[in-house]
């Protein structure tokens, strides 16, 4: 009993911090979302689910949800498609090559977005010099794709590293056996490597989808949601409502809605991951536990 209570004391500070900065605020956000609360007017009044009533008819919310979903789907798909060949290159070794690839991941997203804003610059940007005529950030049609490109540049290294960990866990014997049986490289890739890599792919998908869905930094720096709200994601819309308009009630409702979406994505993926794990051969335990998240 004494050991048990000492153990609880060892864990208490971490528990208290997490309760104070994460659990309590999320509950408080739900509570705030049931209020009309405008900071500057010092107004706060319980209005039940009226904010959510407004939310389902708010065209700007649905547009932001669509933008966020599109951003997430396209960015994560591109990161996976580029990350896989990069992981296979990394698998052949080269510490310096690995460190070089890690650089985009390590620098602040705000910095990389500013860097890309200069590349995209409609007058003197490098992309403009190489390929004149495209106003990357100025046109509603290209601005979201420009933001996706920045996200792909920044986070593909993370995807490649997760996939590299999965590749390293595939026993060489399996690949050798397939080769002895006369399988061509393409056949080995699709019939051996890819199925065994499935759990690592799902894990990368989980981390990146959750992360891409809350995208804020890159878009805030590149366009602040413009032009004409074409790049406004849920986090950007909620941020503007909270801190620009000072509307803490509806802003909290938007935050809670974002939270619910992320929760739903997480649960769906964890289900898939659980199934993949059941099916995975004992050789690869990839996906057994969730790994460090990427921000």
């Amino acid at each position: 009993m004494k050991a048990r209570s000492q153990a609880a004391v060892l864990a208490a500070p971490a528990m208290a911090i997490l309760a104070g900065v994460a659990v309590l605020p999320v509950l408080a956000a739900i509570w705030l979302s049931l209020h009309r609360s405008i900071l500057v007017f010092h107004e706060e009044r319980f209005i039940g689910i009226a904010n959510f009533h407004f939310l389902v008819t708010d065209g700007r919310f649905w547009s932001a949800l669509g933008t966020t979903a599109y951003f997430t789907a396209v960015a994560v798909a591109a990161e996976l498609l580029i990350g896989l060949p990069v992981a296979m290159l990394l698998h052949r070794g080269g510490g310096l090559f690995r460190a070089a690839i890690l650089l985009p991941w390590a620098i602040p997203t705000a910095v990389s977005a500013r860097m890309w804003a200069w590349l995209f610059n409609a007058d003197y940007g490098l992309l403009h010099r190489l390929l004149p005529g495209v106003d990357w950030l100025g046109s509603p049609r290209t601005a979201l794709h420009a933001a996706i490109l920045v996200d792909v540049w920044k986070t593909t290294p993370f995807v490649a590293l997760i996939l590299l960990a999965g590749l390293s866990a595939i026993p060489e014997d399996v690949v050798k056996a397939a080769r002895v049986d006369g399988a061509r490289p393409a056949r080995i890739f699709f019939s051996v490597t890819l199925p065994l890599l499935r759990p690592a792919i799902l894990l990368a998908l989980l981390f990146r989808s959750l992360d891409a869905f809350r995208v804020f930094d890159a878009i805030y720096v590149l366009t602040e949601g413009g032009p004409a709200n074409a790049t406004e994601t849920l986090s950007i819309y909620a941020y503007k409502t909270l801190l620009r308009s000072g509307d803490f009630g509806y802003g909290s409702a938007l935050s809670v809605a974002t939270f619910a979406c992320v929760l739903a994505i997480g649960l769906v993926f964890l289900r898939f991951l659980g199934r993949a794990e059941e099916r995975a051969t004992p050789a690869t335990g990839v996906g057994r536990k969730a790994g460090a998240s990427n921000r």
Partner: protein
Amino acid sequence: MKRAAVLVFFLGPLAWQVLTSFWPEPELTRALPHTLTVANYAGLGSTFARAVLNSLLVAAGTTALCLAAGASAAFAIAKLDFPGRGLLFGGALAISMFPPIATVSPLYLILRAAGLRDTLAGLVLPYATFALPLTLWLLTSFFRDLPDELYRAARVDGCTPWQAFVHVFLPLSWPALATCAILVFIFSWNELLYALSFISTPSKRTIPVAIALFAGEHVEPWGQIAAASVVATVPLAFLTLLFQRRIVAGLTAGAVKE
């Protein structure tokens, strides 16, 4: 060849930014600069130096707080039994998936009520929402890999759980603590949303905020922005090159069963 293409894609934009930072502002309209200058760096001034210092303080504070609170908790989760053990670990994992925007409004009100809004200290606690779960995750898997016999032997020799942690396990965990410190430092150094939401005084801005809001009087000072970006990137480039093995191991910890 393939490697070259990959390197151009990932390092090319950085190289262009470095070149821009030495590019004289009046020559930006040219295809390439005729001369190079350090004027962009010299022009950054004390406000940006302040931002570097602020970022250092906040990132170091977050790292210290998370290691102090996280190491003992991770040890308890890995080796001891106490009520709420599963809840703490599962809860930390769930919290690491929270979108930060979900907690901006209540944290703003809480920090304001506590007089911590618009202070650097007031950033450290919110940063624990992402940094502490990461710490718990990395250190718990590290302590789990150490043999249980070690703990039992310490107990037989008369150590309390606390003494076993301080005298037996902590001295063994420097590599894991270092890995964890590097990752927490990088994530805190890079954070934008909380810093943007809770800090309003320009002299208290962190680097990501300073760079996001960098504005000139008339035109965008691209050369200076590039110089500021390079200054913000250099410490991270060093960390990455020096500790890439640790960073990769930490990022993919648990992605693969040993």
